[in-house]
């Protein structure tokens, strides 16, 4: 019995090994709204080493119904509010906050060192800009995009599909409109699908060590 306990002490748990392994990686988050804030928190909690946050918006009361912010943070920059929240959940994450409306040259400069980038913009034009920029200039870096997230229910319609380094999460049809708002459960669902795809990419070469196999 004592011997078994000693063995367990020697071997780190699977979760600990995963978070240790994830420390080496950097993930870019382009947009810190419903998709970006929720995906970033999930990646921080599992232990991704470095997160680069980019957004230019300020937290308003309207953000609170679906984005990972709190009432006391209204008026702050989203990147600063999210950095604070990430560090409360996991103080070990290295968070870099960029108060910026990304353009093509910013995307190339900011995300060139990332292992994976999450596209989390609200406007279709911005989604096109980052996808075009990444496919053209940084094609070796996987880009995980969220497309078709508005409304409620339809959970089985949300899917993941891949085209080389472009990974698409969402139902690809539910556009934001007056009749179809973006609501916390479904945007959270797709944000976590994106985070899960990032994790899958980062852990593809991860090997779990057992007690007798140090």
């Amino acid at each position, binding site marked *: 019995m004592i011997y078994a306990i000693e063995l367990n002490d020697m071997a780190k748990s699977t979760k600990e090994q995963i978070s240790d392994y994830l420390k080496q990686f950097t993930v870019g988050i382009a*947009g810190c709204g419903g998709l970006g804030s929720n995906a970033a928190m999930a990646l921080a909690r599992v232990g991704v080493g470095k997160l680069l946050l980019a957004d230019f918006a300020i937290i308003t009361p309207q953000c609170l119904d679906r984005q990972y912010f709190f009432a006391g943070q209204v008026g702050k920059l989203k990147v600063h509010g999210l950095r604070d929240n990430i560090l409360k959940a996991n103080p070990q994450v290295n968070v870099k906050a960029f108060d910026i409306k990304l353009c093509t040259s910013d995307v190339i400069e900011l995300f060139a060192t990332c292992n994976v980038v999450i596209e989390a*913009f609200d406007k*279709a*034009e911005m*989604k*096109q800009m980052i*996808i*075009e920029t990444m*496919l053209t200039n940084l094609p070796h870096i996987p880009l995980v995009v969220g*497309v078709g997230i508005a409304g409620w229910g339809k959970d089985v319609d949300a899917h993941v599909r891949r085209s080389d380094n472009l990974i698409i999460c969402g139902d690809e049809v539910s556009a934001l409109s007056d009749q179809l708002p973006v609501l916390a459960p479904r945007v959270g669902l797709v944000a976590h699908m994106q985070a899960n795809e990032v994790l899958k990419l980062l852990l593809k070469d991860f090997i779990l060590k057992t007690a007798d196999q140090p």
Partner: protein
Amino acid sequence: MTITLNGQTENFPANEMSIMELLQTKKINWKLLIIKHNGRYIKRAAYEATVLREGDDIMVLSLMDGG
């Protein structure tokens, strides 16, 4: 001709067609699209000039607001 559109096999009577013709035939009319032809990103300005042939692979992603 037979092409692969978003992972699905599709047959068309024509022997070749432009990306623009494919979009019209398939009634893909979203304002903003991402298109890859045999793995290569195609800018919107080249939709007319890019010709699809037997065995080609096309990825079309319609972009919409929400995030």
